């Protein structure tokens, strides 16, 4: 997203997670790493989530992603919220509760199916 001209703030509780980010884009200010807990409204505000056009919750935990996404949607009024959910039952439920969700397992199985179908 930073390559398309957007500014991206990345929130994570672990400093080590930021080692994976491209240093050039951090130095240019296009990616801003912020230490914090995405399930806390106060930390999301620290990352200016209230001014964001899009919030993407893609941690490794479904419950944490669901909570971050709902804080962004219902409390901070972020216009577009995308939530990663591995559990298909949770995915179905939260889609019914106005969240846009993505599932890594769903994406992989869709790719395999389309490859199998030629």
């Amino acid at each position: 997203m930073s390559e398309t001209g957007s500014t991206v703030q990345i929130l994570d509780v672990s400093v080590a997670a930021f080692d994976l980010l491209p240093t050039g884009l951090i130095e240019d200010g296009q990616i801003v790493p912020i230490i914090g807990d995405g399930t806390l409204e106060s930390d999301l505000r620290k990352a200016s989530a209230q001014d964001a056009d899009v919030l993407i919750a893609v941690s490794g935990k479904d419950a944490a992603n669901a909570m971050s996404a709902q804080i962004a949607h219902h409390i901070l009024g972020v216009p577009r919220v995308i939530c990663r959910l591995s559990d298909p039952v949770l995915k179905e439920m939260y889609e019914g509760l106005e969240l846009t969700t993505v599932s890594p397992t769903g994406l992989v199985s869709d790719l395999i199916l389309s490859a199998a179908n030629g």
Partner: protein
Amino acid sequence: MYVLIVGAGRVGTAIARWLLASDHEIAIIDNDEARCMAIEEELGGVVVPGEGTEAAILGRAGANRADVFIATTRRDDENLVACQLAKHRFGAARVVALVNVPEHVELFNRLGIDVSVNTTALLVDRIQEDLAALMIEEVCSWET
């Protein structure tokens, strides 16, 4: 009344004991094997091992017929997801959640959790009451 509890920590276990003593039917879900065994030993066959955020586990525990569903883990995100599953997927009549981080109370209320128990506020209120009582006692002792 059938009450389904998620989390066999101190709070969940104390609620389970009290409900059983009042002749209610309960089940308690926990993901920790040692805690499950301890509950089983003390309270009998009321334990459903597993994650309270998984629909299959809630289904096995009879969430669809729960009059009250109570999520008591230390993680607010898990309590929220468990309560939302119980309410929206299984139609539990009333959902109650422990809220460990006070700033989460507004979200829980806004998302339709029937009762959000703010554990921090409860503790602070109790300490304030005890301190006030101590201060009154001290003032009274000056006057005598």
